[in-house]
């Protein structure tokens, strides 16, 4: 449940900008995520979701704007801000010549988790995410879904206050997906905050309390699920916001011959 009232935001992005060459990936983006929220970031391909999350987590330096995590500026006081965050990026490699257990041990050490705690937490996480049988397999041999799961375990091992997850459900099978959902729900119920990006509207609709629709590097709509939906279905509302027009009957007509 999102906390209301005069508490500091879990994540607050103000006027974030990032250009790659001539292309504006993120354009004066503002976003505020309240504590205890499950927050969804949705948008079409190339909307700037990953770029935004990279700037919020300290991986990519913004051209302008600020990112604050529980009142710590990510770019002025990185150590304090990063200690509060657990991050699962998308499309970046892991240290995949380590086994799952070794990788968790490594992240635990980097995060300064007490050594005695690391082993027990790692074992619990591996079991919860059904990776127990593959704890000694090199991560490079994992499937795409298993990579996501071990990445999530890495993001959780230091019990962060804020989780930032880029496409956490991509390539994850339905059973594991349900496990992750319940982990995230429990985490938010206990006061943690989750910010995750996704393409899948049904997923966001069923899991998130609040969301923001992003396109062309800007926030088109943000608020609670009902506010954004505005009476329509989220899918339809999203298509309206992004400006989708269905292709006519006559387009790609030559493709039809292949069915004959």
């Amino acid at each position, binding site marked *: 449940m999102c906390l209301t009232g005069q508490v500091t935001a879990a994540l607050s992005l103000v006027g974030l900008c990032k250009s790659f060459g001539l292309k504006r990936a993120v354009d004066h983006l503002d976003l505020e995520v309240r504590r205890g929220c499950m927050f969804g970031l949705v948008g079409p391909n190339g909307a700037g979701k990953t770029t935004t999350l990279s700037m919020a987590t300290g*991986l*990519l330096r913004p051209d302008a704007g600020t990112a604050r995590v529980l009142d710590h500026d990510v770019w002025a006081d990185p*150590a304090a801000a990063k200690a509060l*965050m657990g991050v699962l990026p998308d499309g970046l490699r892991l*240290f995949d*010549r380590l086994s799952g257990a*070794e990788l968790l041990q490594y992240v635990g050490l*980097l995060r300064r988790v007490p050594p005695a705690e690391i082993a027990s937490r790692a074992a619990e996480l591996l079991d919860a995410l059904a990776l127990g049988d593959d704890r*000694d*397999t090199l991560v490079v041999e994992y499937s795409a879904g298993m990579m996501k799961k071990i990445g999530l375990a890495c993001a959780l091992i230091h019990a962060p206050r804020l989780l930032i997850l880029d496409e956490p459900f991509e390539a994850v099978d339905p059973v594991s997906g349900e496990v992750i959902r319940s982990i995230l729900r429990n985490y938010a119920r206990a006061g943690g905050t989750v910010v995750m990006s996704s393409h899948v509207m049904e997923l966001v609709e069923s899991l998130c309390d609040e969301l923001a629709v992003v396109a062309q590097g800007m926030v088109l709509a943000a608020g609670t699920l009902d506010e954004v939906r505005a009476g329509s279905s989220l899918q339809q509302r999203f298509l309206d916001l992004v400006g989708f027009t269905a292709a006519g009957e006559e387009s790609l007509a030559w493709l039809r011959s292949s069915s004959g």
Partner: protein
Amino acid sequence: MVALLVRLKLTLLKNSLKRSVWRTVGLIIAMLYALGVVIMVLAGLVALRYASLALTADVTVIGFAALSVGWLLMSMLVFGVDETIDPAKFALLPVRARELLPGLLVAGLISAPGIATVLVGAGLVITWARTVPLTLAALIGAVLGVVTCFLLSRAATAAFASFLASRRFRDLAFVGVALLGVAMGIAGNMVSAIVRTDVGGLRRSLSNLAILAGWSPFGWAWAIPADVSGNAWAETGLHLVLAVALVGVLWMAWGHFLGVRLVSPTEGGGTASKVRESAAVERLYPATPAGGVAARALRYWRRDPRYVAGIAGFLIGPIVLIVTQVINPEGTAAVAAFAPSLLGLLVGFSLAQDLSYDGTALWLHISTGISGAEDRAGRVMSTITVYLPLTVILLAIAMITTGAWHLLVPAVGLTFALMLTGLGVGSFVGTLWQWPAPPPGANPFTRGNAGGLPSLLSFTLTMFGTLILALPTIALVIWSFFTPWVAYASLPVGLICGFLVLRIGIAQGGRVLDRRWPEAMLAVSEKAA
């Protein structure tokens, strides 16, 4: 298909140049370098026109056979193959390897070394253009020779790459290549030693070498005009048949391996190998972020073929020096005794490229918020763990084989001074430049196009920085040749100066990294074109 692939190559080249200034600069430097070499070689070939037919024959056969050997060795050991057009990318298209080959051949020749080789091949025709039959023979020889050069490098790397695709053999293969390098180095030294002792018979040994080169596969094509010039028609015919056959065999071999890659473009995995859980590695280091980095890096030294190859590569130099000095009757014990210091000098570079080797996995270090100094210190710890025993063993071998125990103290002093200084310099330089390196398990022969210039800068600065900062120790060691007791000062001075540079390198490198983490991330994640 040929025109299509050539156009693709040119478009890719143009686009990659548009994306990065570094790459443009790198290409221009490569072009200028190649142009300089080509002009010198062409001048030499034109000058040869005024030499006797026999001399021209010997020189061209040896020189051009060396060119063929160079293509093979350079592509295997140093440069890799320019995979601007990666055959694996064609796996989803309905094309056969046979249709791709001619286009890939022509497209592959459009590169600095390719164009240079074609020009040098034209030089062969110029030098032999004395009679019509000679010109014709030279033309045939040059075309066959250039094609052989190119096919040799492609067929060999393709064969080797598919061999390497199975991870189990990869370490072994790297060690094999390293041993080949050692063998070549020793053989080269021996040949030059033999030539040096027999200056009077230089002309005779040139002829003998030419015969050897001409009848080795590397010289078959190049020897055709030489045979014609001596009216040796039987040899001409034999060389022609052999050269054509070699081109045919290489062509089919390359086609075969290309066909394999079109069917299985990705590396073979399948067997999920388990690692033995061992806390021994962690117990080596303190349970801190730096200790974690050290334990992780130590595991990579064992499991990542790039690191294994690095160790083998660094060991080649000192081992070649020690072996050649010991087996050469005129060798000096001092060179062998001080050879291990070369390893100390090189170790710094392995640190300087460590961040690039991590690739995008580096995000973990950034998002966990560890300090740059902790990152540096961890990597230094694991590098010492790997190289300290190797250095001690090398020193022991050098001392035992030469018996030059009176050089033990300065040799130990110089080696460890260079090693500690190198680690310090490498810790700092590694934070200045990063580049996208091919990930572990990728075809190691694919040239990291973008890596060229930054890695060269990084290497040069590490080497010179280490030498300059180790000057006090180097000076003392040189002094000790004239005043022996000074040797005993070189050991403490070397260790103290080395530790000082190491501490400063870690601290300052860490400070740079704390400021540059996102930039480093950007530099390693730029996709290799």
